[in-house]
């Protein structure tokens, strides 16, 4: 009897441990993680990307709807192909990256999560912070859980990968980025495409 109870306890504990959320680190040594931004104004289209992505996400494969975490983009890594345009973008009139070095999205809850196999689509609600202005946003996300795939990326490590994809739009006026000015050359709407992978070593 004691043996049976002990075995049951051990199985319960193991089950609980397996079902525990995993923490995925999004600092990417491969340099693949990126956030693309697109602005399409009547006179000018601006496309660029940011590569300095860090942050962690807590993800439970048994309960993807409970996903939480924070992704941070280093504002200084925002790059456009034209050097002068990049200087203006980083300058105090536009993003002021010296004063506001981080752009972040902190996910507080996932709504309408639908999981098929290893893929989950949902609406992520959280706080998006840009140029020091924080706003509550709800954005569509797609999570792809890749169990035991970390070794395929980093041969010396074993573990899982989590790929997060999201495309959403923000209004620059909402974040105090030269509101109402130069709208013919710099679009009011900014489209952001986030494509990132995080690792959870075992």
């Amino acid at each position: 009897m004691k043996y049976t109870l002990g075995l049951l306890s051990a199985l319960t504990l193991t089950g609980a441990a397996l079902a525990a959320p995993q923490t995925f680190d999004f600092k990417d040594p491969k340099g693949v993680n990126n956030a693309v931004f697109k602005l399409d104004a009547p006179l000018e289209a601006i496309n660029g990307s940011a590569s300095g992505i860090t942050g962690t996400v807590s993800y439970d494969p048994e309960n993807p709807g409970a996903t939480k975490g924070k992704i941070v983009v280093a504002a200084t890594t925002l790059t456009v192909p034209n050097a002068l345009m990049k200087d203006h973008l980083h300058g105090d009139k536009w993003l002021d990256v010296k004063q506001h070095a981080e752009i972040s999205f902190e996910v507080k809850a996932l709504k309408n999560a639908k999981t098929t196999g290893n893929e989950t689509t949902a609406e992520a609600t959280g706080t998006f912070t840009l140029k020091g202005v924080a706003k509550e946003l709800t954005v569509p996300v797609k999570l792809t859980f890749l169990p035991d795939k970390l070794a395929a990326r980093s041969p010396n490590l074993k573990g899982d990968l989590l790929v997060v994809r999201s495309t959403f739009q923000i209004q620059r006026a909402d974040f105090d980025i030269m509101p109402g000015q130069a709208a013919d050359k710099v679009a009011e709407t900014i489209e952001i495409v986030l494509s990132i992978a995080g690792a959870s070593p075992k």
Partner: protein
Amino acid sequence: MKLRLRVIALALLVAANAWWLAAGANRGWTKTLLPVTALDEVTGLTGITYEKRFLPGLDLLGLAWLGAAVLAGASLISRTTTHTQTHTKT
């Protein structure tokens, strides 16, 4: 002098157009960084890095055209000056 200026203006115009066309006829601003994409086969994500490369845009082409126009204009002024000097001597 006026012929020399006009030849230089024409050469600048032809060279600038040829360079812009040969570089890919970029109809945007001049670029000093070009995005290079690489697919990560494990995650399916496309990474973006930038390599330093100079790609002339319409702004540089416009500047060359302006330079050519200034040279051509200067050739006209040069001709007038020469004519006045000749007339004074006579």
